[in-house]
């Protein structure tokens, strides 16, 4: 077995530091990635290589400036790819584990950017739930019970996503300094 596929990794390793450590441990075991695609959050394809000591960095940047990639490359980081707006970088090292966010403030800022992005998505999920609840109540009051019940799966779907997003935000909040 020289290849393996891992599903939904970014949905399970939601804290950037955990995702980085997980990727680094895989590299130590000789499982590496060539390129991370847009759908890397859903599916990561790894192939067997010799064990590598990599430092991985996860960096959310919704609107990166023209010099973003070049700044990282100047510092010796290799571009692995991006999942939506999340950039993944790596650097092979032998001695001290290199840092991209070298002080506490910038590390917190990196994690806050991710947390804020999830907060925005959560709000976007709560809006249809609220609309469905209001609409459902109106239908119920007007005696259209069948249509009101038809909204339940819709509400449950968005509620499920909202519960997951709340859990992600809580995890990120607990790990802001990592």
């Amino acid at each position, binding site marked *: 077995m020289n290849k393996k596929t891992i599903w939904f990794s970014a949905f399970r390793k939601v804290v950037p530091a955990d995702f980085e450590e997980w990727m680094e441990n895989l590299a130590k075991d000789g499982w590496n990635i060539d390129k991370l695609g847009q759908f890397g959050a859903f599916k990561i394809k790894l192939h067997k290589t010799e064990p590598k000591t990599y430092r991985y960095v996860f960096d959310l940047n919704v609107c990166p400036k*023209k010099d973003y990639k070049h*700044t990282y490359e*100047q*510092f010796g980081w290799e571009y692995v790819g991006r999942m939506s707006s999340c950039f993944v970088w790596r650097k092979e090292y032998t001695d001290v584990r290199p*840092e*991209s*966010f070298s002080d506490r*403030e910038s590390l917190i800022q990196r994690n806050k950017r991710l947390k804020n992005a999830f907060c925005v998505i959560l709000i976007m999920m709560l809006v249809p739930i609220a609309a469905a609840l209001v609409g459902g109540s109106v239908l119920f009051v007007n005696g259209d019970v069948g249509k009101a019940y038809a909204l339940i799966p819709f509400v449950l779907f968005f509620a499920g996503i909202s519960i997951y997003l709340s859990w992600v935000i809580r995890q990120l909040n607990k790990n802001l300094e990592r």
Partner: protein
Amino acid sequence: MKRFIPMSETMFYILSSLTEERHGYGIMLYVQELTNGRIVLGAGTIYQTLSKLERDKLIIPTNEINRKKNYIISNVGRTILIREAERICELSLIAKELLA
């Protein structure tokens, strides 16, 4: 101005390194040398701080050579840097008195 004072150590070093025109990697080398290797700024930290300083007009991009974007401190940035330097001097004086 109050938003920037007190300034983080990283921001202070980055801003003071831009009293001369420099690019991101050059800033890292300068700060590393200035602090005898104590502070090694990372790419993410530099990019993030430069973006913030540029957005708030404390630094100005000057030119781009070989995809390296150079910056220099603005007049506003210099005023804030001097205020912060004065604050640190005051602190240093008090600290020295405590140790005397």
